[in-house]
């Protein structure tokens, strides 16, 4: 019986490939679009993931997301250090500044200032140079993406000639202050797609325009054995500032972008379209396929096959087409994601996404099969022969 079912399915090439293509395409559309959506949204809190040492992030209570700047007075650092259960606390500066490039061009840059003494918050994956080089005079780090894109410099004397990425030794100006590139780091791409410049906290203050409040965030490590949630509440109670675990801070940031931008609606529509395509093409074709094969089902029924056996056949056909389509669709999505460099396209496949597309394909297949099954059950063998 199973063999006959599969032969029925695979035998009709045109219909089979139609069904397969529909399901593959639906899976691809749903998975890929949602992966891009997730990738894009993950970028909004790239900085939080970039600094995994921190157990808690302390910021001004009115801060809306991680890239928001609501600086605090510098004594906030000492106030956080005063809280019981804080192992260490480290300052972090973050602000968008205009950099004047060696070729005279100007570029907005995200400047991150890390603690001078410990360099906590400095990039982990250093491609060129050493993190300790940040202690040299006027030293900054740039990241590979910015260096190879917005910060590109002419490779020859001809300003319109070929360009090369920014490299160690290049000198920029940040607010009329000299800044020397001493290293290149690889970091996660950020949502705002501006080059990130790393330097030390006090140098960053020197680069920034005069401001009495300079402390953007405080990174906190909890003492060993300290309950993080309890520490979080204690910091908030004693300092009046807001403390977040990396997860909470990420969600807060994510939430801000979800509510403030049209991104969720755009991607939601694309994903819904994928689902509709699946239903319209694959589901409808599968139903048609059953209708076309109705005469064979009728013959088998006349030869004594039970309804249960026939339903099993339909289920097997649906399952085979679904699994194949899903597998192919996922494969194409993954290959697509792997083949495009991370800085070109935000693509992040989290485990929930294959589950989501599996569910979507299941709904399509189960829906189409159910309709087909209904037809098979109601089938009167007489009709087949009388026609």
């Amino acid at each position, binding site marked *: 019986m199973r063999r006959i079912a*599969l032969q029925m399915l*695979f035998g009709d090439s045109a219909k*089979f490939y139609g069904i*397969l293509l529909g399901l593959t395409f639906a899976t691809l559309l749903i998975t890929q679009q949602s992966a891009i959506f997730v990738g894009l949204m993950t970028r909004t809190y790239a900085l939080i993931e*970039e*600094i*995994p*040492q921190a157990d808690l992030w302390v910021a001004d209570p009115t801060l809306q997301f991680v890239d928001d700047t609501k600086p605090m*007075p*510098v*004594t*906030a650092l*000492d*106030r956080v*250090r*005063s*809280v*019981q*259960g*804080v*192992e*260490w606390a*480290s300052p972090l500066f973050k602000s968008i500044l205009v950099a004047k490039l060696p070729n005279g061009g100007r570029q907005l840059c995200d400047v991150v200032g890390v*603690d*001078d*003494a*410990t*360099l*906590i918050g*400095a*990039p*982990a*994956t250093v491609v060129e140079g050493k*993190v300790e080089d940040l202690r040299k005079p006027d030293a900054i780090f740039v990241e590979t993406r910015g260096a190879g894109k917005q910060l590109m410099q002419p490779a020859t004397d001809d300003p319109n000639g070929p360009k090369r990425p920014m490299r160690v030794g290049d000198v920029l100006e940040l607010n009329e202050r000299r800044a020397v590139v001493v290293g290149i780091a690889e970091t*996660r791409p950020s949502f705002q797609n501006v080059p990130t410049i790393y330097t030390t906290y006090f140098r960053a203050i020197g680069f920034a325009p*005069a401001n*009495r*409040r300079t402390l953007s965030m405080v990174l906190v490590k909890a003492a060993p*054995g*300290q309950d993080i949630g309890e520490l979080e509440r*204690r910091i908030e*109670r*004693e300092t009046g500032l807001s403390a977040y675990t990396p997860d909470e801070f990420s969600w807060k940031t994510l939430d801000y972008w979800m509510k403030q931008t049209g991104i969720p609606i755009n991607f939601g529509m694309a994903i819904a379209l994928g689902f509709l395509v699946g239903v319209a093409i694959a589901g409808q074709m599968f139903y048609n396929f059953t209708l076309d094969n109705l005469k064979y089902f009728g013959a088998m029924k006349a030869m004594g096959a039970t309804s249960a056996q026939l339903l099993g056949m339909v289920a097997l056909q649906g399952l085979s087409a679904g*699994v*194949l*389509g*899903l*597998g*192919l*669709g*996922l*494969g194409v999505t*993954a290959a697509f*994601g*792997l083949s495009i460099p991370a800085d070109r396209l935000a693509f992040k*496949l*989290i*485990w929930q*996404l*294959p589950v989501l597309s599996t569910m979507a394909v299941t709904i399509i297949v189960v829906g189409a099969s159910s309709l087909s099954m209904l037809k098979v059950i109601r089938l009167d063998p007489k009709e087949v022969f009388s026609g």
Partner: protein
Amino acid sequence: MGIKVRYVLLPVLALTGVGLTLYTVKLQARPAPAAAPSGEPTRSPFGNRVAGSGLVEPVSEIINVGTPMSGVVQSVNVQEGVEVKKGQTLFTIDQRMLRSQFQSAKARLEVVRRKLDQLKSLPRAEDLAKAEAVVEQRRAALKDAQSRLDRLNQIADPTAISPNERPTREYELANAKARMAEAEADLVEVRKGSYPEDLAVAAADVQVAEAEVKSLQTDLDRSDVTSPIDGTILRVTARPGQYAAATLSAGEGLVTLGQLSPLHIRVDVDELDAWRFDPKGKAVAVLRGGKRVEHPIEYVRTVPVVIPKKTLTGDNAERIDTRVLQLIYRFTENEPGVLPGQVLDVYVETGGGGAAAGAVSGTGGAQGSSAGSVGG
């Protein structure tokens, strides 16, 4: 062929696709690598504590020595790092003009002194002898006039003499008397010497000249700028030939010095945390970065006024929103590697816990020690 594709290749492809997906999921779920800190973050050895940033300073605080008078620096007599005694010359402002003024003032003093001596030396013996001789001469002339009148009076016959003779002799006598009186008065004047008023004027002139010499001497002394304390030279910005103005603003000095033993540490504590501070609490200062060194420190005093936190932004319209309580601590011994001007993190143990436990001071110690073991 076609069947083979459908029965074998497609399932294999689909399986590969699922595998690829799982691989991608696993690959992208990798956590970010954390950069190893290049220096140890400072940690508090206490559970309940107040933290602040401390600036190391000499026990005398930093003394910026300026100059009391403007002028060109003539010589600098100290180098950075050397120890000086109180009163030792640090640098000298050009003295040539002062010296010449001093010389001429001294000469003027000599002149007025001589004048006074001259007045005091009167009367001179020669003048006296001369005046006495004049008196003797006049006395002789008086006697002569008297005797000539007496001789005329002895002639009894009135016709023997002309009627003019007698009055002439009488006038001669009166004249001689008056000349005698004049000579005697001259003698008295010479014998008396100088007038006391003249002497007083001359003595006052001497005082004025003396005062001028003294004032120039003081200026000369002041142009040698000396150390106000026993201490160590921290910075020298004075250079020979450089113009030094007497109107230096605070924070600038031609020579900066201070007494380095023991070193003090000025701790800024946010005003919002100030109420939790306990002078009796144990305190440590922790060196930032690199090798973490804890220095035990002792409470000295609290600056009794809450002041704006010093953050130099260069904006002259800035408003202050951060105020700090300043606490002064002392290093119990001089620590190697700690220098004035350095910033350290300071932790002071407090009795109670946070806002809630702060009020209960009785049980504070026990809470502190139990929390300390958690923190350590």
